[in-house]
């Protein structure tokens, strides 16, 4: 069994019309044994930018702190918030720095451009290979299931509340077929005006 499946967990992000959504499950496990149902894997970076970090839990925490540190340094040096595209490259180079002893995390980035509110999503593999998708990105132990869901449910130019429903259904039905993900979920809906964060109840088995 791969180290990527040691703790379990999944994240999905989607682009909508002037909005993005990112969602992750809440399970923390030790192989097949579930330990906690409150382990959030999606973290805010700026007012309009989130990162999801599914993978090895210890690396999730390390990377969360690393990204907090590096985006704080960026803000101090530049005097402005980091843009989603720039942050995606920061994620990529942070991971590639450890090319031969990688962090076992496959991050997902979702946010709105602070200048023009253009929606942005991206994902990388564990050594930082970037994937800028126009539609949706998935990551984690339920990624194959969520690919199947998202490929059928997603459509272009979804309004915020429709995007919320699409991303929630993708995540929920995906993790319900994955033994290593689930146990509740959190969805962040990012619009130019506000961020809506909702907790989803789901199957607890």
């Amino acid at each position, binding site marked *: 069994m791969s180290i990527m499946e040691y703790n379990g967990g999944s994240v999905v992000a989607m682009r909508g019309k002037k909005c993005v959504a990112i969602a992750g499950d809440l399970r923390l496990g030790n192989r097949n044994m579930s330990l906690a149902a409150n382990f959030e894997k999606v973290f805010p970076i700026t007012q309009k930018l989130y990162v999801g970090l599914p993978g090895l839990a210890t690396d999730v925490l390390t990377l969360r702190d690393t990204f907090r540190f590096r985006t704080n340094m960026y803000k101090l040096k530049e005097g402005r918030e980091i843009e989603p595209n720039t942050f995606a490259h920061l994620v990529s180079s942070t991971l590639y720095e450890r090319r031969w002893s990688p962090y076992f995390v496959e991050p997902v980035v979702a946010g709105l451009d602070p200048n023009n509110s253009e929606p942005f999503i991206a994902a990388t593999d564990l050594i930082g290979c970037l994937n800028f998708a126009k539609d949706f990105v998935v990551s984690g132990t339920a990624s194959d299931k969520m690919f199947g869901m998202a490929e059928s449910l997603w459509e272009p130019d979804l309004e915020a509340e429709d995007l919320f429903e699409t991303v929630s259904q993708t995540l929920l039905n995906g993790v*319900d077929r994955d033994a290593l993900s689930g146990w509740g979920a959190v969805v962040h809906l990012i619009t130019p005006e506000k961020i809506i964060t909702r907790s989803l109840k789901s199957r607890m088995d």
Partner: protein
Amino acid sequence: MSFSPYTQNGGTILAIAGKDFCVVAGDTRQSEGFSIQSRYETKVWRLNEKATIAANGFAADCKQLVKRVKWRLETYKHAHNREMPLKSIARMVQTMLYGKRFFPFYSYVIIGGIDDDGTGAVYGFDPVGSYERETCRAAGAAQSLLQPFLDNQIYFRNQQPADPTNPPIPGTLPLDNVLAIVTDSFTGATERHIEVGDALEMYVVTNSNCDLGALQQITQSATKTDLEQVAREEAEFNGPKSCKTFKLLRQLKKD
């Protein structure tokens, strides 16, 4: 290294039951490793007027299994002067699969058809014969992509009914909805799985009450090769022929 008698030939199959029909579908790509061997090799076979079988995994084992099933159905017909009922076919397939428990057929099998009371039925199997009657089932290379979608669309998982006093019942969707779900499932799987694609064969097993409007609509918009009635002339055992099986062929992406 010793000789390995197995390989995997990709592809994916799917079946959904309705009130008075059942759809059994499979893509037609056969592959080994990264090579596409054929773009049109069927994985779904009509067994009789009430049963259609789909088998996926190691193609040689699948074809051998279906050959044996057809042979057993033929001898049953000669011995009992009637077609074997669907549930009996399912039980027979379980014994045939378990009969090779220690040198298994590497096949994931789904049987779809019309049961004794005329309702659509799906039976899903694992390679050593464990089986279950269900409303829908996906199997094969893209099972993990398709099954969650079916959970959502057929079993209405994670959905709140608009009218809680009258929730939707799985297995009651009309034929046009089911055909749309099957098509969407496979176009999605084709997009994200390299072993799925080329073409989609959908067998529609219907009973006499089934509203064929959805099929007629497709007939009007489609070319002749897209719709083919598979039911052939055969000896009559159950009085007037009631069940018809139709075959729909749709092209999928070939990359």
